[in-house]
């Protein structure tokens, strides 16, 4: 029995580590806000969401599989929540009856298995009933397989068989085992045999029948004898107790896996509910294979920023099909960083099977999203900071492969414009020529200008505009980089009219 709701034919690997750049991504793209919105009050989603969101898939078909499952979840969220609650119930019940360490006595382990397995099977049966009632409403391959599995694997005959087996291992007629002789003529290779005494009458309960063989009765008050006898029985039970213990563990693992996989989808449902409540649009992206160089969106917005703001926020259209490099320049506070983030977030959400925050979106897959942002630390020493930037870049390069998507935000500016520009140019061009996709927010004029002069077909120039009165519209336009970023605007706004006066 497998959940298989995140992958068509395998479990999600929950033990896998987050990618090395996970911390950078979370910080630079503000993903914690996204995870929090997904989680709501739930305690499982926070442990699950980062792993799925940051563990992007590189295969279009695998993503379509998830998109379909997510569509089902959005359409029938109450039923999915019910299944999720059942898995939760099983896990909680199991934990409640668990008293700590594994027992040293097979008979105790066996008893625990006999207690928990019926509870597990009862919950599984309730899941099966849900499946029988609602399976037809679900359209995704994932849910269809899941429901039909519940129906076939948990049919009544099977449940009855399990019931019988659990009764047998209560050993009402004694524990029968076959044994061989080992070292020192001690018994070894104990194999437990099924043993049910036919037609037990009252005499046989007291006197063992002859076919039992040579019999020894432990005299009354021989306590060590009784202990030895029960240990002998334990040796026989050992393997069966182990088998039951492991079966319990397996079913528990099924519930745990199911809960984790559903947690991701319910996190998506939660997120969508919040965005929709604000009137923000979401859409399922059209996905192309890596290398297709497709990136085109209408009203692409930064979901994390929106979640933090009261109002709806301004999105951008991104028409970057065929582009390997997007150079973003322009006015301060003009929405450059927001746009860069929205590119990164949309890519990550698409690559884990989620909807994206936009009216419409299509893009090709990457081999991984990376961020290289200006950092605040070590501000006292400019050379040290520049050194740190290069070191981080060096670390990142070790992780890059073709079709990676690298977001630079004001990188290599911790030196003068000329040096910074030269380094930025060399790095950016080297990446692009190696098949990496780059989006670069920069104030380095020489860098941006030089790219503009070359004006390759594969480079897109976006500029954050500034209307003449200094107000910003936050909508980027395809335009030539300018040597100013209108930093004075902000200066004047902050210092107010007095400064304006001084200027004149």
């Amino acid at each position: 029995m497998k959940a298989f709701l995140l992958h068509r034919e395998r479990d999600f690997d929950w033990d896998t580590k987050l990618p090395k750049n996970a911390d950078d991504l979370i910080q630079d793209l503000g993903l914690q806000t996204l995870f929090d919105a997904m989680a709501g009050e739930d305690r499982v989603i926070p442990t699950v969401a980062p792993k799925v969101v940051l563990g992007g898939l590189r295969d279009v078909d695998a993503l379509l599989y998830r998109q379909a499952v997510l569509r089902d979840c959005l359409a029938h969220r109450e039923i999915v929540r019910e299944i999720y609650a059942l898995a939760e119930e099983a896990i909680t019940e199991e934990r409640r009856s668990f008293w700590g360490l594994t027992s040293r006595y097979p008979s105790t382990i066996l008893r625990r298995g006999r207690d928990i397995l019926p509870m597990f099977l009862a919950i599984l049966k309730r899941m099966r009933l849900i499946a029988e009632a609602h399976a037809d409403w679900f359209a995704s391959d994932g849910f269809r397989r899941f429901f039909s599995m519940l129906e076939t694997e948990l049919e009544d005959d099977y449940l009855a068989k399990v019931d019988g087996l659990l009764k047998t291992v209560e050993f009402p007629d004694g524990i029968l085992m076959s044994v061989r002789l080992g070292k020192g003529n001690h018994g070894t290779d104990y194999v437990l045999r099924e043993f049910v005494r036919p037609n037990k009458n009252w005499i046989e309960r007291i006197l063992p029948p002859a076919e039992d063989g040579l019999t020894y009765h432990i005299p009354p008050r021989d306590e060590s004898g009784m202990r030895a006898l029960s240990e002998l029985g334990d040796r026989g039970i050992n393997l069966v107790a182990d088998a039951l213990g492991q079966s319990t563990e397996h079913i528990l693992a099924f519930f745990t896996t199911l809960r984790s996989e559903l947690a991701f989808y319910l996190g998506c449902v939660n997120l969508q509910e919040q965005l929709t409540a604000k009137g923000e649009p979401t859409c399922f992206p059209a996905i192309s294979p890596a290398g297709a160089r497709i990136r085109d969106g209408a009203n692409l917005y930064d979901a994390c920023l929106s979640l933090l703001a009261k109002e709806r926020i301004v999105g951008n259209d991104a028409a970057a099909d065929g582009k390997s490099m997007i150079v973003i320049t322009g006015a301060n506070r003009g929405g450059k960083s927001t746009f860069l983030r929205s590119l990164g977030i949309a890519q990550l959400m698409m690559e884990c099977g989620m909807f994206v925050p936009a009216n419409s979106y299509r893009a090709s897959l990457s081999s991984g999203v990376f961020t290289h942002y200006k950092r605040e630390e070590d501000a006292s020493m400019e050379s040290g900071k520049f050194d740190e930037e290069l070191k981080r870049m060096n670390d990142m390069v070790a992780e890059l492969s073709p079709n990676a998507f690298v977001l630079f935000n004001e990188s290599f500016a911790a030196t003068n414009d000329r040096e910074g520009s030269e380094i930025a140019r060399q790095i950016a061009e080297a990446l692009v020529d190696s098949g990496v996709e780059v989006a670069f927010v920069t104030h380095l004029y020489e860098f941006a200008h030089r790219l503009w002069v070359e004006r390759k077909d594969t480079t897109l120039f976006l500029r954050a505009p500034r209307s003449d009165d200094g107000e910003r519209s936050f909508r980027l336009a395809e335009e030539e980089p300018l040597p100013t970023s209108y930093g004075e605007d902000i200066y004047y706004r902050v210092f107010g009219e007095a400064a304006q006066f001084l200027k004149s």
Partner: protein
Amino acid sequence: MDPPFFADLYLDQIADAMFAGREAYDLKPLFRVPLGDVDAIGYRHEISRDLENDEARKCVDTFADAMRAVRAALETESKLRYRYERERWRLDAAETYCAAIGNLNEGLRRPSVRSHGLVAFRDFLEQYRTSETFLRLADDVASLRMGLSGVTYDVLVGGERVSVRPCGEERDLVEAVLETFSRFRQGATKSYLVTFYDRGALNHIEEKVLEFVAQLYPELFTELDRFAERHADFIDETVARFDREIQFYLAASDYAKIFEAAELRTCYPRVDPASKTVRARETYDMALAHRIVATNGPVVTNDFELSGLERVLVISGPNQGGKTTLARTFGQLHYLAALGCRVAGSEATTFLFDELFTHFERQEDPASGRGKLEDDILRIHDILEHATSNSIIILNEIFASTTARDASVLARAIMERILALDALCVCVTFIDELASMSEKTVSMVSVVDAVDPGKRTFRLERRPADGLAYALSLAERYGLTYDRLHDRFKKVER
């Protein structure tokens, strides 16, 4: 009891390190008996070289492991009470023994085994394996083993009773459970198997069960009784001796490997009974080196040589420069050579001594009623009473507890006697003139570092004892040599 020079030469430490982990074999008595003739030493060298072959070594190790298992099984047997349990341990011991004899015999047949000692033992094994005693043992073991491995029975535990009966046809419940729950399998989970620790002896319920099993297989268990009676003492005496004595070689070889692993050399010394020429290259104090190697420190090696008429090595020089260590090394080298072991160094020639004497400084013994000087003289007198021209005498810092003049007079007197005796001698001393007393004496001096005289080099060189090298280099360091002073004055003048 160890002879008195063991402690002085650290031979006690060497023995402890060499035999560590092999205490059960009681090998120290072998270590206390140096060999008196060259052939006996050569006999050991041959065996030792044979065992340097990896396959031969493995074969002997395997045999030793098996014999340990045999003894352990017999030890277990001796502690047990219940008949069928005891007898089975005896049977298992005998089975291990028979297999070990066979394997050892096969192993010693390989062509690399050439030494007189091992070839003779192999011939013994060939005979022993076809002896009536051994064949009977092997046959009995085989038939009983087969019988017992075929024993199966059912045990039924219920209420306050336990029953034993021949094996039935009932379904394996474990398989039934695994099969039933197989559809839930999710990959590896932790094991819930409980480990039952064998407490060694059967409890009285298990004894009962075994008794019933014996009743199910009466003939087999009667045979088992007979086996124990018939083969009360099955280990052959010669085999037992081999098992012990071969460990001496393995221990010595493993000990040498400790040094080889640290890139220190060991070698089989040439032992020439006719000549008093002794020499060693890149040699070292094994006891000291063993400690240093354990902490990955550097070990300094030295050379020495006495040839022609030379008999006495006089070692002088600054303190803590490795003088005593070299004296000790000289003694160790000769003693280990006389045991037929590998010795420290890339090359060595040793003398086959009749007795080895040491005189190292002793703690004053208040109970003796004698002063320290008196005690020293008495001990040396005793040595000279017993020493012959074939003895080795090692003197360390004699007469340290008197005035320089007295010491010099006394030491020269003693040295005259040793020179007259023509014995080999090493003398560590601060009395420089001993070094040039005669053409029979050779002077070795501990070397100081030219740049930093405070640094110990632990190297010793063969050269006259002038007592100057150390002082000169110290002066250099403080800028007080002639040239340095000259330069300094010139600067001042200008």
